[in-house]
């Protein structure tokens, strides 16, 4: 499997100037909205600390909470399944659909189902799947993965959406009015809710105490799906557990504020038992999570509540777009969990970062994202996944900088080089620095030379 080349992908993204500028501004706006909410709440930082501690407690007792959840969910009338990996998840879902003779599935947003690559699996087995979240639907119709976990089509402008809809659901491709486009999707999707044999949702939180799960949305699509067909399947990552209902007070208060800068999503639904005469299935999914739990440096990533705040604040993400990460999970959270799925494929991602730490500061559950990015770099270097060029550069740097004599020679040569080399030698395609920046000017002497000349040398 070939490595994702984030830098190359980002270069293309930036070239599309209108799209890139909009993308950056739109996500920065979400970051500012988050700030307005956090500033309006005196207990914001206290809630972050609480949310982090609740998640850490839960993860360190996860076995017990999973069993408690299963016991209570089953007593409520839900059917609970366990999937070790993506393949098993897909097989379980397929088996449930087959059992019920369901051939049309409406689904709301679930990154987990994307992670498991469920859609192609089911489509190859004759199931028609309709993504109902507007952003996910746009991406499905365009045969492109979602680029952001909360706003999946944030990288598209209205003209792009008009083109996609015109091509696929028969709208007027020249009409780029946003309400018209949204209304078109509403009308096109609605019949599917009414006739679908099954609905799928994800879950933002699963409560052990009551055997219930929570789905936070804005559009109404998840609840149309969950309350119409006679079969509701919920895919839930095992890390979504929370101990008690009261903890939702903390997490629901933080989720939408962090994601979109609104106090709550328009619809926050709590599912505890199936409607009479219907079936509700929960698929608890591991797919590498239990292994990540045992990684001393990286298990904190399991606290993630999928708010996307880290993506909104990340200056690199905003200027490269989620698709440049080549994974279901992009941005800062993607950078620290993707290497657990495939170290080689995602080995460039931890370097798609300046380690500025803004992500860590906005994370509602205080994941130390930028510190984990730093640690992943060490893992990648140790496991020989660094590009040759970088590996060599660091080896040479390590030797030169460890020797006062070699260091002085290099510094003086660099300064002299800048002074004397013709411009075309300094600014050429091999000098990445010089593509869009001037290099520093050469001073008359280095600091050390000045010190020796003016302050008398040896101490």
């Amino acid at each position, binding site marked *: 499997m070939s490595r994702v080349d*984030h*830098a190359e992908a*980002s*270069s293309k993204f*930036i070239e599309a100037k209108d799209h890139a500028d909009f993308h*950056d501004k739109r996500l920065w706006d979400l970051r500012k909205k988050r*700030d307005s909410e*956090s500033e309006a*709440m005196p207990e*914001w*930082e206290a809630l972050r600390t609480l949310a982090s501690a609740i998640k850490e407690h839960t993860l360190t007792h996860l076995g017990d909470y999973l069993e408690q959840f299963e016991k209570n969910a089953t007593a409520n009338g839900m059917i609970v399944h366990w999937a070790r990996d993506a393949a098993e998840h897909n097989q379980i879902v397929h088996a449930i659909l087959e059992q019920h003779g369901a051939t049309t599935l409406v689904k709301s947003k679930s990154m987990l189902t994307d992670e498991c690559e469920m859609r192609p699996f089911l489509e190859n087995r004759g199931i028609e799947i309709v993504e109902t979240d507007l952003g996910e639907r746009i991406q499905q119709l365009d045969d492109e993965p979602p680029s952001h976990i909360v706003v999946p089509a944030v990288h598209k402008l209205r003209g792009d959406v008009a083109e996609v809809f015109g091509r696929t659901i028969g709208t007027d491709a020249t009409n780029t009015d946003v309400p018209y486009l949204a209304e078109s999707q509403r009308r096109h999707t609605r019949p599917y809710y009414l006739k679908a044999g099954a609905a799928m949702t994800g879950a933002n939180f699963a409560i052990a105490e009551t055997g219930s799960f929570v789905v936070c949305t804005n559009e109404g699509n998840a609840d149309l799906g969950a309350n119409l067909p006679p079969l509701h399947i919920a895919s839930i990552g095992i890390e979504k557990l929370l101990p008690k209902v009261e903890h939702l007070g903390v997490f629901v208060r933080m989720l939408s504020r962090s994601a979109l800068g609104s106090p709550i999503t328009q619809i926050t639904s709590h599912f505890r038992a199936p409607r009479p005469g219907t079936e509700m299935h929960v698929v608890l999914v591991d797919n590498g999570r239990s292994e990540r739990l045992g990684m001393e440096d990286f298990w904190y990533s399991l606290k993630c509540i999928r708010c996307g705040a880290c993506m909104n*604040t990340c*200056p*690199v993400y905003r*200027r*490269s777009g989620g698709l440049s990460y080549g994974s279901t999970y992009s941005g800062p959270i993607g950078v620290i969990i993707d290497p657990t799925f495939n170290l080689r494929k995602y080995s460039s991602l931890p*370097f798609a*970062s*300046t*380690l500025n*730490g*803004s992500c*860590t*500061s*906005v994370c509602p559950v205080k994941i130390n994202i930028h510190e984990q990015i730093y640690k*992943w770099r*060490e*893992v990648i*270097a140790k496991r020989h996944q*660094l590009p040759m060029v*970088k*590996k060599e*550069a*660091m*080896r040479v*740097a*390590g*030797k030169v*900088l*460890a020797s*006062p004599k070699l260091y002085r020679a290099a*510094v003086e040569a660099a*300064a002299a080089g800048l002074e004397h080399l013709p411009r075309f030698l300094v600014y050429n395609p091999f000098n*990445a*620095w010089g593509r*869009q*920046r*001037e*290099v*520093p*000017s050469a*001073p008359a002497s*280095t*600091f*050390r030379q*000045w*010190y*020796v000349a003016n302050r008398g*040398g*040896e101490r």
Partner: protein
Amino acid sequence: MKVALFIPCYVDAFFPEVGIATLELLERLGCEVDYPLDQTCCGQPMANSGCHEDAHDTEALFARNFAGYDYIVTPSGSCAHHVRDQMTAIEQTPAVQAVRRNTRELVEFLHDVLGVREFPWAEFPHKVGLHIGCATLRGLREAKASEIDEPAFSKPGRLLSAVKGLEFVQPERPDECCGFGGTFSVFEEPVSAKMGHDKVEDHHQAGAEYIVSPDMSCVMHQQGCARRAGLPLKFIHIAQVLNGARA
């Protein structure tokens, strides 16, 4: 107190005036400052690339050069942050731990250790955009980061507010990373350059004549962008301003 001066490689090579201003400023404030002549680098470039084995010897040299001082002062937030929080490629002997503990970025040293608040010799009658590098801001916590809901504070801002004639202007994104990021600037050049250009444009739109920063690495990158873009922005290190530079 015995103070040693650590000058990062890019300051040594390209911005010696920053080192000179730092030294002069510390001496003006009554410090006796040594400059160990065999110093090189703190090891950050290798460590930040994950190459901790390659960082080992450089870090060991740093620890040897700076042993025995009460404080090691450096005009670089990212270097100070690396030494204090990430210099772990070498064995953590008591001596090494002491060197790490005692390393301070210049502003921290002035603000926290010397407790300086006045710079009567300083005057800088210009509109200033203050840029605090991310390691200095979120690593060393020298100012309130915009993400965190806490009372406002800024150590560099506090010191600069004592400089006659200096007027702060606020860019739209006061603490968005400028995109230097060490080797990021080369290996992720497209995004790095875009971030740098956005940053200097933001300061320019805010009316800044000068960008003043405790972080010359960021400055080097922003200056490169500004010059290429033909923006009339000038750049200067905080040490130079506090030491009395007029321009």
